[in-house]
């Protein structure tokens, strides 16, 4: 029997691949898939008192969620903020990647290391540094007041949606830079020269050649910025105030001081579903758009 | 000499729907320089990897020197391989590369040192012990790969297109050197190549493969002079194909009606039946004669030169004739592109130089 199995093993690539993958797949199953399943089932329970939960099945939590103006508006705001952040990050990062991919000749690696370095420093500290800058006693306000240019601090800087958007754009930049750079760098420069040779202007060449060919990077960037920012907790908690609050802050509250685990689980599930829907729409559009390229 | 040193018995290897090797059987003699020749995707490399143990056959078995090696992993086989890209370990130097495979052989330190020294002198790499792969030229890497495999004194050396990455001049040199080396050490070589000239010039025997099957297996000479089918005739060297119809048999000859030329009695090497109807005549360009005047050869046709290509040692002429629709390729060492000012010429064929092949 062992012999048979051994010879099957030696002959089969999938068997080898799956035995190599098994630790990772077991980890994902035990530490993520099963917990997510349990979280889903919690969303169908009821918190009866501070310590007790009624385990009978009900969809009331979902009804609660959608009847709550606060929760629905937080969900919409989270999605809206994420969209704006994604769009702004892409738009600002694209020219930088374009420059490095096509104009930088020496030490491209160094440019990229420098570009991604801030991303590796603590997320919490990066967000915090914006608090230092934008806060009521922060760099901008204090410096302007010290210089006598202001008598009262500018309050709109801090605890607002704008503060959240600026900070997130800064925090997630690396996630746009890397996929964009990789896809731009892959473009064979002779294609661009060919387009110019065939009579297209610089702008036309960009629209008709460069942009479509960098689409995979754009799509990749959209997904890996949008998905995590929808659920961002730190930035709105530190900088959002009431105006910039997002859904994650409520989820944290349900698992913390409000202590309503089922409603928290339902909110997390709804966030997950939102993310899944956006991912599917983006992937579907990508397929349609990139079919012709690849 | 053992005539069935390697036995390949009804070996098939399928990758999903693709039959990379399709029910192949043959034997390789001890001490032979044996080549597997064919276009890319013909299954030659798969067959070599089956011999090395990197692939296991879907069906069939392999015998080496009388023992079944079909299920043995590569490290347990008395074969060694020279890889197409040489696969020199980049993190250790030449000496360590050559020593790599000796660890498990249970040799003493002195034996190891002696073997490494001997093999490095055999491949003319003395003094390169401390170098790393990145500090070697293509030809030197090839020698390291060779030394690393030979130092284990394998029963069979497997070579996977080892000369493919070298430039033309170096390749010609290495061909000669490999051939000499093989005769010197007497180890059986199984050599995979897509280059027909390489296979023909180096090998004792060649197996021509296509679509997972052996098309013909014989000496290089035989391969060139007596191709067994259209594929081999086309793949080895250059040839002209003429359509013909069989008429009647006459002992070892057969009477065929060559399209546009009439009836001829031609040697029937493949023993084609007179009922075969459609057959193909193959005539090599260098067997024909091109001249300014008519000749008394079996067939002589008047033609007009449409195009020439000058190759130095000979010239190729592409000739249009009244009789044959196709352009005929003729090569000559006597005339060149300046010999026929008006383009008018005669081309002559000997019936002995026509080989008759089955239409597929």
């Amino acid at each position: 029997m062992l012999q048979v199995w051994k010879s099957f093993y030696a002959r089969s690539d999938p068997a080898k691949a799956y035995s190599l993958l098994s630790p990772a797949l077991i980890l994902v199953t035990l530490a993520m898939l099963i917990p997510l399943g349990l979280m889903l089932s919690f969303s169908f329970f009821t918190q009866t008192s501070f310590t007790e939960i009624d385990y009978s099945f009900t969809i009331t939590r979902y009804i609660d969620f959608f009847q709550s103006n606060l929760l629905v508006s937080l969900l919409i705001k989270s999605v809206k903020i994420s969209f704006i952040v994604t769009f702004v990050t892409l738009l600002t990062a694209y020219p930088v990647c374009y420059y490095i991919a096509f104009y930088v000749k020496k030490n491209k690696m160094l440019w990229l290391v420098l570009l991604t370095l801030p991303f590796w420093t603590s997320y919490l500290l990066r967000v915090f540094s914006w608090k230092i800058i934008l806060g009521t006693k922060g760099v901008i306000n204090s410096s302007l007041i010290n210089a006598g240019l202001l008598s009262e601090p500018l309050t709109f800087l801090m605890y607002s949606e704008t503060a959240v958007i600026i900070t997130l754009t800064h925090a997630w930049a690396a996630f746009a830079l890397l996929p964009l750079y990789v896809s731009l760098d892959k473009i064979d420069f002779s294609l661009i020269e060919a387009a110019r040779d065939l009579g297209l202007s610089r702008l036309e060449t960009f629209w008709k050649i460069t942009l479509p060919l960098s689409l995979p990077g754009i799509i990749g960037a959209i997904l890996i910025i949008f998905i995590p920012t929808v659920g961002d907790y730190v930035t709105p908690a530190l900088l959002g105030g009431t105006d910039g609050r997002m859904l994650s802050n409520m989820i944290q509250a349900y698992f913390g001081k409000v202590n309503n685990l089922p409603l928290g689980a339902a909110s997390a599930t709804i966030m997950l579903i939102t993310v899944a829907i956006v991912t599917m729409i983006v992937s579907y559009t990508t397929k349609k758009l990139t079919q012709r390229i690849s | 000499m053992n005539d069935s040193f390697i036995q390949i018995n009804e070996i098939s290897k399928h990758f999903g729907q693709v039959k990379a090797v399709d029910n192949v059987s043959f034997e390789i003699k001890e001490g032979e320089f044996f080549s597997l020749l064919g276009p890319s995707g013909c299954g030659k490399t798969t067959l070599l990897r089956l011999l090395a143990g990197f692939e296991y056959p879907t069906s069939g078995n392999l015998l080496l020197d009388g023992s079944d090696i079909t299920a043995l992993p590569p490290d347990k086989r008395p074969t060694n391989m020279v890889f197409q890209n040489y696969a020199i370990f980049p993190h250790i130097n030449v000496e360590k590369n050559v020593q790599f495979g000796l660890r498990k052989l249970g040799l003493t330190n002195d034996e190891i040192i002696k073997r490494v020294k001997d093999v490095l002198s055999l491949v003319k790499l003395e003094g390169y012990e401390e170098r790393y792969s990145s500090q070697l030229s293509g030809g030197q890497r090839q020698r390291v790969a060779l030394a690393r495999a030979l130092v284990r004194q394998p029963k069979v050396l497997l070579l996977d297109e080892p000369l493919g990455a070298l430039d033309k001049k170096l390749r010609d040199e290495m061909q000669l050197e490999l051939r000499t080396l093989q005769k010197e050490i007497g180890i059986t070589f199984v050599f995979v190549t897509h280059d027909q000239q390489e296979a023909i010039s180096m090998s004792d025997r060649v197996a021509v493969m296509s679509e997972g099957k052996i098309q013909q297996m014989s000496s290089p000479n035989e391969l060139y002079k007596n191709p067994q089918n259209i594929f081999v005739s086309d793949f080895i060297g250059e040839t002209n194909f003429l359509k013909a119809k069989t008429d009647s048999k006459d002992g070892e000859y057969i009477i065929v009606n060559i399209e546009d030329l009439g009836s001829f009695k031609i040697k029937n090497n493949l023993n084609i039946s007179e009922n075969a109807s459609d057959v193909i005549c193959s005539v090599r360009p260098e067997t024909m004669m091109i001249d300014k005047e008519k000749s008394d050869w079996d067939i002589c046709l008047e033609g007009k030169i449409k195009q020439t290509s000058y190759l130095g040692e000979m010239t190729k002429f592409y000739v249009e004739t009244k009789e044959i629709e196709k352009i005929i390729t003729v090569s000559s060492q006597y005339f060149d592109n300046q010999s026929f000012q008006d383009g008018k010429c005669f081309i002559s064929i000997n019936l002995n130089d026509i080989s008759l092949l089955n239409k597929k």
Partner: protein
Amino acid sequence: MEQKNNTLLIYTLLYFAFLYIPVLFLPIFSFNDANYMSFPLSGFTTEHYEEMWEKTNLHKALWASIKVGIVASVVSTTIALFAAKAFARYKFRGQNISYGAIMIPFLIPEIILAVAILVIWLSLGFKLGLVPVTLGHILFCTPFAMLILIARIEGFDFSLEEASRDLGENAWGTFYRVSLPLYLPGIIASLLLSFIISFDEFVLAFFLTGSDATLPMYMWAQMRFIQKLPHVLALGAVIIVFTTFIVLLAFWLRNLGQGKDKAEFGIKIHE
């Protein structure tokens, strides 16, 4: 290649400024002896750094983060090494689904992972603490480690492993003598970067630590008090310098002996 484009160059430099200046404020103000963070700076002091020696809570949190980081990076790099080998070496049915499943923790909002682990941990009746945090970090670091290692292994010439088998080494001997030394820069890069990710991670720790604070948790607690800000600034500056050093070391290792334009930084978008 095009020649020059000054507009784009200026824009790129401004973008660099946008990326770096906010982070640089931490070290700058950590040496300032005023309570307000304002320009011009009032005076130079190192007292905020000296304070750090006395805070035992800080030392406890640091030690907790180091423990979690070491376990998380070693375990996730090991798991990821096997997985990366499978993806780089073999083609098999279910490849994309497996890849997606392993990448999910990297993609979905961290808060969802945190909540899911919290729910199962409490349901099983276990105590919150560094153990669930470590589990969460392993889950979160594995996709990162895998991306770094795939980038390393992908360009790997697998005929080297075949050559080793051909020369008489078995599977383990081949791994030890050929694969491991060649993967090593990637493995170390993965260990360092996974450690940094775990070391800086906040959300999972926030939900799962209970009373054993990690370093980010400690900072979080300090950030709320305006009078403790200079202390946080100093600590943050130290962390940033430390992180930068480790990350540069990891990048340098990762690119050791690799094609110079393999500039994916371990983050490869699977298409």
